[in-house]
């Protein structure tokens, strides 16, 4: 039985204090109702807890967290999963800007669109490989400075029929990691020096693995998603700025 909290008019500091106290008591499942704008929910929490959130959580949802699983029934604001370490965030709506900034592990699944600078400076190290899957479309600077990890962009469940699947400066400054895009992107959208590539068999397998989990989260048909070919964007060098300086 999940612990239910009505968060109406509760300040984020009180809410997080309550959450931490309950976790300390051994509670592992939470249902948060009437969330509206509370920042830093579950920030820095290291236990493997599960939170279901109804409403619109505020900035920096799950920042620095190492372990929790957060399911949001609604949209999230900017900074979701900021520098997160482990765990999972599932958003049954849209997400704001700078989703998954400097994320070093765990997963973020967003059903619909995301804002600007998503996955900026994600990084991978040893067995930690962060993954972001976006069902809708993304704003400019997706995967900027990306140093590791995986971003998968589907463009299927968007609220913006008029917008391209991704904005401009896609992967600009990328020096690690991989971005998979369902369909095509124009080369003019890509950051300097980047090119779209075809997928290998390993890529296909990897995509299937991550997307099956995504499909489970949102009750979607994997084959429908895989019908359309993907392209992949990878850094052309791990040292894009080697020739920058004069000594």
């Amino acid at each position, binding site marked *: 039985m999940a612990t239910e909290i009505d968060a109406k008019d509760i300040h984020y500091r009180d809410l997080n204090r309550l959450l931490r106290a309950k976790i300390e008591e051994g509670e592992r499942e939470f249902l948060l109702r009437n969330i509206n704008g509370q920042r830093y929910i579950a920030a820095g929490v290291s236990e493997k807890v599960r939170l279901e959130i109804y409403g619109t959580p505020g900035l920096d949802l799950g920042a620095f967290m190492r372990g929790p699983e957060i399911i949001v029934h609604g949209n999230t604001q900017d900074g979701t999963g900021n520098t997160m370490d482990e765990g999972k965030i599932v958003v049954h709506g849209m997400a704001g800007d700078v989703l998954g900034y400097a994320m070093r592990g765990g997963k973020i699944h967003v059903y619909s669109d995301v804002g600007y600078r998503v996955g900026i400076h994600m990084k991978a190290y040893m067995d930690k490989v962060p993954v972001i899957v976006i069902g809708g479309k993304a704003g400019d*600077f997706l995967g*900027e400075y990306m140093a590791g990890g995986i971003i998968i962009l589907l463009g299927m469940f968007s609220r913006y029929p008029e917008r391209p699947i991704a904005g401009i*400066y896609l992967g600009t*400054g990328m020096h690690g990691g991989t971005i998979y895009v369902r369909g095509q992107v124009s080369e003019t959208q890509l950051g300097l020096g980047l090119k779209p590539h075809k997928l290998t068999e390993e890529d296909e397998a990897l995509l299937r693995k991550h997307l099956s989990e995504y499909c489970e989260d949102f009750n979607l048909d994997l084959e429908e998603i895989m019908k359309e070919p993907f392209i992949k964007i990878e850094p052309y060098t791990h040292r*894009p*700025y080697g020739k*920058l300086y*004069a000594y």
Partner: protein
Amino acid sequence: MGEKKTTKKKKVPQWASFFPDFIIERDPEKCINCRICVKECSYGAHIWNAKKKELSEDHTKCVGCHRCEAMCPTRAIVIRRNPSEFREHAVWTPWFIKNVYKQADQGGVLLTSTGCAVPFRNYFDHLVLDACQVTNPPIDPLREPMELRTYLGPKPDALEVEIKDGRFRLKEPLPRQIKLEVPIMFAAMSYGAISLHVHQGLARAARDLGTLYNTGEGGLHASLYEYGSNTIVQCASGRFGLHVDYLNAGVAIEIKIGQGAKPGIGGHLPGEKVTEEISKTRMIPVGADAISPAPHHDIYSIEDLRGLIFALKEATEYKKLVFVKIAAVHNVAAIASGIVRAGADVVVIDGLKGGTGAAPTMFRDYIGIPIELAVAAVDQRLREEGIRNRASLVASGGIRSSADVIKLIALGADAVYIGTPALIACGCTMCQHCFTGKCPWGIATNNPELIKRLPPEVAYEKIYNLVHGWAHEMKEMLGAMGLNSIESLRANRDKLRAVGLTETEMKILGVKHAGE
């Protein structure tokens, strides 16, 4: 002044030759008598005695260009300041003593090259830039767009927009503009003053950088017509090589009224520099002096300037922008205002520190005002009169780095010209003897043997690299200030602070002191 009665005695001592500026040190241990130094020194400072089979030096001929030192295969040569010292005197420094000797020996006007060498306050070095911390983010130009593009030309105060087929359209096209991808252009340096190879290098670099170079007043060599869309042709008082094809060759015509290194005087290319190729380009006989008068003899007043501006516009069917270049002098703000009102599309201000191939030393060092103050005053004046949009403002004279460029733009310039840095990029060592035409580095010469030392492709690469590096630095500085486009820096004096300037100086520059 009466005629001098020449002394009949055979030997008049030459004081200046007793005290050379430099001495050539040759390490006999390292020297292998290969005589490369003799070949490299166009001034004859290295002497080979064929009989004795030994090398010697004439220190008096050394100009301190360091060519021999650089070319010596065994690094046996070092050029040093002559350590011989005069008795210390705060007023009568060796510079003044030696200048008097030179004039006593030769009775002439002191001649030199490059820009002002007097250590007047260098305002660039008293201005510091801002950077973002917390309240707004610095922008990383490596990954985010950072724009240096600049349009030169007159702009209306307002645009008129209409709706055509459901879309917004301009009612009237914009007056003719020149697009610069980087707001650094190459200043007028004539073919004659510098080698054809440097001109070729400048032209190519301008094309590949998306900017402009300026022919100077020596006409346009046939090989350079292909770079027309990156060329400014100059119309100076001597009108050398100036014909209608030349006027139509570039995208702009610059009327040169004056030059920062020598305001108020013309130019003089000595006959010995007028070679076959130069003669063709300048359209004067080989060996004839090329003299540019001090004024344009069709401009004795501001309304005459308007006359020439429109004569040029008519002759080129209004397809070219007309630049007017003046030296920064005391009343520069009012003069610039007059130039804008006379119909110039771009006003160029060349400051005290601007360089030259040849100028009287007194002019180079003591006439004109620093560009930083001049730009600040001109920009402010044009704004007060509400005519700043009517013309673009280009600044030059004494720029040494990308930070200097940034500071001039923050003070109000639209773009800058650089001359000296481009030549230093080609290997110039600032020996300040361009006027001799013997440049051992093959830059300020047209001696067919010497120019081989600097092939056009080398000149191109070095100049291109320099501006490429500066452009990147400018983007970094803009990014640090939280700006992603150069127009948001233009005249943005908030981004500057003064260190160690007086109230008056800060008032003219329109900047606050650091800490305020």
